[in-house]
């Protein structure tokens, strides 16, 4: 049986959690050696992705993407972050911001596989469909 990237990542997480920083280097070296022995170096990118997912999940970290029509000021971003934290039950929220002019107004928040669409564009579209009905 092949070892999947997910299994690698889970194993790596188990071996590094609650370890001190100076031990980590040795563990990682061993891990890479293990990958090489199994001819799985090519999987490393996927393993890193999976590892990030696991790490975020265990430490209750959420990565969110905030898309808005204009650059948002700091208090608004902070409010949004608190809102996301409340929705997802996370303790820490990392956010990245994106500006997309054709949203017209409002924000779209994406985190994990969830999306909260509060943009003016969608609302106008919904209104349009309602009117056609």
């Amino acid at each position, binding site marked *: 049986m092949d070892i999947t990237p997910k299994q690698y990542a889970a194993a790596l997480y188990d071996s590094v959690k609650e370890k001190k920083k100076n031990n980590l280097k040795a563990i990682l070296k061993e891990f890479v050696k293990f990958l090489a022995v199994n001819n799985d170096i090519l999987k490393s990118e996927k393993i890193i992705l999976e590892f990030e997912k696991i790490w975020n999940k265990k430490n209750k970290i959420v990565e969110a993407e905030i898309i808005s029509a204009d650059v948002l000021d700091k208090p608004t971003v902070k409010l949004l972050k608190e809102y996301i934290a409340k929705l997802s039950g996370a303790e820490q929220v990392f956010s990245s911001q994106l500006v997309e002019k054709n949203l017209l107004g409002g924000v779209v928040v994406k985190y994990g*596989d969830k999306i909260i*669409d509060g943009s003016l564009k969608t609302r106008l579209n919904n209104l349009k469909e309602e009117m056609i009905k």
Partner: protein
Amino acid sequence: MSNTKDFIVEELKNQIAGFKTEVKEQTVGTVIEVGDGIVRISGLSDVMMSEMIEFKSADNRQDTPNEAKNQVYGVVLNLEEDSVGAIVLGNFESIKEGDTVVSLKKILEVPVGDNVVGRVINPLGEALDGKGKLDTDKFYPIEKIAPGVITREPVNKPVQTGIKAVDSMIPIGRGQRELIIGDRQIGKSAIAIDTIINQKGENMKCVYVAIGQKESKIASIVAKLKEHGAMDYTTIVLTGASDPASLSYIAPYAGCAIAEYFLDKGEDVLIVYDDLSKHAVAYREISLLLRRPPGREAYPGDVFYLHSRLLERSCKLSKQYGGGSITALPIIETQAGDVSAYIPTNVISITDGQIYLEPDLFYQGNRPAVNAGLSVSRVGSAAQIKAMKKVAGKMRLETAQYRELAAFAQFGSDLDEETIQKLERGKRLVEIFKQDQYEPLPVAKQVLIFFSAISGLLDSVPVEKIRQFEKDLYNYADTSGENVLNEISEKQEIDKNLEEKMKKLVNDYKDTLDYLLKDDISKN
């Protein structure tokens, strides 16, 4: 003029004031792979099995013309560790890798209601007959658990197919599942269509599910049904041969959901699945594309369950539960008469009997080509009316004897009197079973002709004249023997008195003929 303008503006304001948007959290996924009618999606972590999903392609978000904006839906069929497999209901060419998918939080449903009667629709409830959108606000899920034991009762009312060979020897009851099986081009659909035509005035709704059929064939079926006034109580669910396999796969379930609406109203429904071998092929295609392991004949392991859960939804409900029924006539096409292939054996074991059509009989001119020996109805005889039961029992025996003797008599010419008489009788019975398409026969007339045959009244009619005689006898009975026919259909039983009346009717008619054989002994 300004009045109208004011009204419009006012109305618009009201509309906008009443319009509230709600910002909801939605679960989304992205398409990572598109195949022939299937997609693989990442994300959608909390999606359910057989949940509906909507594809929002990048194009749709731009201001594309309306027809191109047609929403494409899908159904989740595979839940895997890091991806979701789904089938696309509709045009999968517009879906691209990276498109957004939204889960709709509901199981796939079809519109049902009284308005679907007389329509030709696809399995999603979209009209295909150009009569405009279906006007109904009721929806039924396409997958439903079949009614349980306590809600059911044994079949007790017949479905009159109007086909002599079927009604006499292989009777079908309301709530039964009777398989029609045979090679291609042998009259399987014809039996089903005749049955639908014969339901006129029988208080029966009909659903005809065409799975992967040629659209030309369906067009002619619809025309025929219209001609006979059968579209007044019939719904046609159609997936054409060029439609994606996913639509063919859901078609019988959608048809069954439409039937269940009438069942819940306590009505009797007849549903025809034409045909389930194409359905199995469509499911095989989907399963293989979704990389489920293939089994015998490359069908997936759950192909038995595919049909059993569908046919189990046919039922006869007891009085407390409305008393409705769904009678199913599934059709299976065999390859060169091979009934021991995978799908035919499966469906034979699920159904309550089968009507087996044979090529040899068909080419000999015995149409419908029902093989009476291999065809059975396991429960239908309980529902047969008494009059028919009485004549049919003897018929069955005499036909069986004839078949045996006929095979034996081929070798010798020296036969005793009794054998010759049996052979002559048998030949006439075979003639009687012949019946033209689109000409279903009321049960009273069937009883009359069968009674004439087994009581020897037809022995004096030359074999080649039997069909002519039959036709003319019906005409004669319609004009001067109406009370006899009425009595049969009212009493549903043959007593001595009625027996005499029938004998008299037939003999009276025979007196007007000039082609009878001379040594007529039956009159004595």
